[in-house]
C-alpha cells in the first residue's frame, strides 16, 4: 500500500495541476441541477409533493448531480496519457507490485470524489437544500458518492488498459449517460411507467441514487441506504479485481 499511496499522491498533484480538467466536474453537475430544477421544479411544489418530504425539488435532484460529478473518469484519461507518453512503462519497470499503479489512481479518485462531492453538497446547502440525516448523513452522502467515483473510474481504467486510446476511453465513459437516465432521476421509482420501472430495477445506479436521495430527504432509512452501499461495494470489488487482472497481464 506504500507504493499505491505514493502514486496516489502523484495522481492528486496531477489533478490539482490540471484545473481545466477539474472545473467541469463541478460546473457541469451544477448546470444540470439548475436546468433540471428549472424545467420540472414547478410541477413538483414541495408543499404538495409527498415524495419530496418537505424539501424542494432541488434536494430531490441533488443526487443526480452528485453521481454525474463522480462519473467523469478523468483519472482514466490521465492513465492513457501515461501509457501514450511512456511513463506507464517507466512505472512498470520498477519493482513495485503492478497493482499499485492502478490502486494509486483509485485512491486518488476516492480523495478527489470526497472533495468534489463535499463542495457540491456545501454549495447546495448555501442554496437552501438541507441534508435531513444530519452531519453523519452528510458524511455518508460524500462517502457513497466518492465510492461510486472509484467504481466508475475503475470501469474507465479497464477501457484505458485494454484500448490504450484516449478516444476509446472517452467514448466508453458515455455509457454512464444511459445508466443515469434509466433511473428514477425525475420521479420516484413507483411513479415510472412499467418498462422504465423494470429498467431502473436492473440498473445498479438506481440503488446508489436512491440511497443518496434517502440521506438527503429523510432521516436514516436503512432499507434505502444499505442497497446503495452494497452495490458500490460489490461493483468496487469487481472493478478492482478486473483492474488487477488486466494490469498483471498487460504486455
Amino acid at each position, binding site marked *: 500500500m*506504500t*507504493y499505491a499511496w*505514493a*502514486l496516489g499522491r*502523484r495522481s492528486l*498533484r*496531477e489533478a490539482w*495541476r*490540471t484545473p481545466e480538467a477539474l472545473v467541469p466536474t463541478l460546473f457541469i453537475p451544477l448546470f444540470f441541477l439548475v436546468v433540471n430544477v428549472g424545467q420540472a421544479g414547478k410541477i413538483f411544489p414541495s408543499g404538495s409533493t409527498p415524495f419530496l418530504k418537505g424539501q424542494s425539488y432541488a434536494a430531490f435532484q441533488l443526487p443526480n448531480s452528485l453521481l454525474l460529478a463522480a462519473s467523469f473518469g478523468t483519472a482514466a484519461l490521465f492513465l492513457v496519457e*501515461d501509457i501514450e*507518453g*511512456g*511513463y*506507464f*512503462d*517507466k*512505472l*512498470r*519497470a*520498477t*519493482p*513495485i507490485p503492478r497493482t499499485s499503479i492502478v490502486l494509486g489512481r483509485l485512491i486518488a479518485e476516492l480523495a478527489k470524489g470526497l472533495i468534489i462531492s463535499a463542495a457540491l453538497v456545501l454549495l447546495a446547502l448555501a442554496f437552501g437544500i438541507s441534508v435531513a440525516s444530519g452531519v453523519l448523513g452528510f458524511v455518508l452522502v460524500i462517502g457513497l458518492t466518492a465510492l461510486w467515483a472509484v467504481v466508475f473510474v475503475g470501469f474507465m481504467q479497464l477501457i484505458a488498459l485494454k484500448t490504450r486510446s484516449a478516444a476509446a476511453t472517452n467514448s466508453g465513459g458515455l455509457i454512464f449517460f444511459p445508466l443515469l437516465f434509466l433511473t428514477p432521476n425525475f420521479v420516484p421509482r413507483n411513479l415510472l411507467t412499467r418498462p422504465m420501472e423494470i429498467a431502473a430495477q436492473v440498473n445498479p445506479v438506481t440503488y446508489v441514487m436512491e440511497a443518496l436521495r434517502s440521506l438527503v430527504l429523510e432521516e436514516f432509512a436503512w432499507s434505502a441506504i444499505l442497497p446503495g452501499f452494497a452495490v458500490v461495494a460489490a461493483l468496487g470489488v469487481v472493478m478492482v479485481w478486473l483492474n488487477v487482472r488486466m494490469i498483471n497481464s498487460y*504486455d
Partner: protein
Amino acid sequence: MHTQTPRREAAVEASSLVKNYRSRSGVVEAVRGIDLHVTEGEIFGFLGPNGAGKSTTVRMLTTLLSITSGTARVGGVDVGRQPDAARHRMGVALQEAGLDPRQTGRELLTLQGRLFALSAREAAERAKELLALVELEDAADRLIKGYSGGMRRRLDLASALVHEPEVLFLDEPTTGLDPASRLTVWDEVRRINQRGTTVFLTTQYLEEADQLCDRLAIIDGGLIVREGTPGQLKKELQERMGLSSEPTLDDVFLDATGRTRSRGAGDVQEVSA
C-alpha cells in the same frame, strides 16, 4: 601449460529468445531466437533497421514484454522468472522519454526513488545528487512540461539511475535531439559507464554506435546478423570484400542488413535491396 582466460561475467545474457505476436493475418515472428552476451562494464550497441526487433528485444529484457520462448538474464537474474529482482538490477530509459509532464524534475526523481524502496529522506538526497549529475539543478523545481527535448532526455537518464542499477538500457536515447544535446547525452552515457554501469544501447545512428560502443550486434528480421567490436566488423567486411580502404560502420550495417547505397552526383540515396 595453456591457461584459458575465464569469461567475464555476463551483465545481459539471452538464449534462443523468441517473441511472437498474434495478428489478424496470423503469427508475426518479431524476434526469432537470438543469443546475446553483454559483458559487465561494457557499452553494448544494438543496431538494426526499423522493425528489425530492437525495441521488442529491449522490452523483453526489461520485463515490459512477455517472452514467447527462450531465456534472458540481467545481472544474473532470470527476467521471466524473477522480474522484480531483475528490475532492481536494471535502469530503463525507453524510446520516448517516459516522463510525467505535470511533475517537477525533483518530484519525479524522488517518486522514482520511493518506488525503488528508498526512504523519503534517501529519495530526496538521491534526487539532489542525480539532478547535479545531469546538470538540471536550476530546472529541478520546474514542471517537466516546460523542459526542452535535451533536458527531458537527461532527466530520463537520471530517473533510470535512481537505484544505481548494474545495467542501463537506453532505447534510442538521442533520437530527435539536436547535435549539441546529442553530444551531451553521449558524455552522460560515457560518464555513467565509467562509474561501472553496463550500458545496453539501441540506436539508429551508426556514428553514435561507433563513438560509444565497445561491442555491438546488428539485428535484422528478428535475427542477429553481425556481432563484434566496431573494428572487428569493419575488418571482416574489408577482408571479405577485398576493399582497399577500411569501410565505415554504415557499410557494415548496409552489408549486414542487405541494403545497398548508390552514390550519385554528391548525394547519397539509400534503397532497399
